[in-house]
């Protein structure tokens, strides 16, 4: 059989990364909890990490991608810290984590 002209490995990795990404965006739209939105962001970053690693592996340049991932993780942590800090401060103000309470700014 004239081998499948697609690589199941590529397919599976890209599709699963896409699914994880979509999960994150879905959660950003439908979640009402601030902390869960931050979790959704983290979930999206995981998908991106997978994609990055995959790209390096595909090109045989995994070392380059390793350095990318390390930098990325550092940034990810800082963003998570900032987000958590903001969530905490919001909680202190509103006594709730409901995102729907954050709608003073509009129009």
């Amino acid at each position: 059989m004239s081998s499948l002209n697609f690589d199941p490995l590529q397919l599976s990795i890209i599709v699963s990364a896409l699914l994880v990404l979509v999960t994150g965006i879905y959660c950003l739209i439908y979640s009402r909890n601030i902390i869960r939105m931050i979790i959704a962001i983290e979930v999206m970053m995981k998908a991106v990490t997978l994609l990055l690693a995959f790209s390096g592996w595909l090109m045989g340049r995994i070392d380059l991608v390793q350095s990318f991932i390390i930098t990325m993780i550092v940034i990810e942590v800082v963003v998570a810290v900032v987000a958590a800090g903001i969530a905490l401060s919001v909680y202190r103000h509103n006594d709730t984590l409901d995102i729907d309470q954050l709608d003073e700014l509009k129009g």
Partner: protein
Amino acid sequence: MNLPILLLLLGLMVVAAVAAVMIRSLLKSAIALAALSIVLAITLFFLGAPLAALFELSVCAGLITVIFISAISLTGNKPKEEEEEKIRERRARFLKLPIFLLIIGVFVSLAWIANGINISGISDPAAPTFQTFKNLFWNMRQVDILGQVIVILAGAFAVVVLFKERDQA
């Protein structure tokens, strides 16, 4: 690389991600996120990026989970107080997600197979093989290292500004 193992790992990843989003308890969500990180770390290891896997494991699965859990405990997780109706409504909102994901996954896979898409990758004749991780990271990517330094500084200032209890100016 072993395709079945990879498929298993990827499946686990998707499940963990959906779980992190769907589980009602925030604490369990955070733990699901940690699980997602762990699975990702294993995948990275299999893809030949052990250092990145190590980082993922220690920082994402460890540090970020700690941050989340402390944030959750500081804000007080009050699932019990949620009314029955709210819970049902929430379930209705999130139950669509797996179906949605299934449709997307199947559709994209079919489209991929039907079009015979293949990322051939560019075989760069001048692709240097002598590049070691050390050389790459410390010499070639020193701009990124500078970025890391700055972003960590920013993180420190974030802690100073945002986590201070008493400040209602």
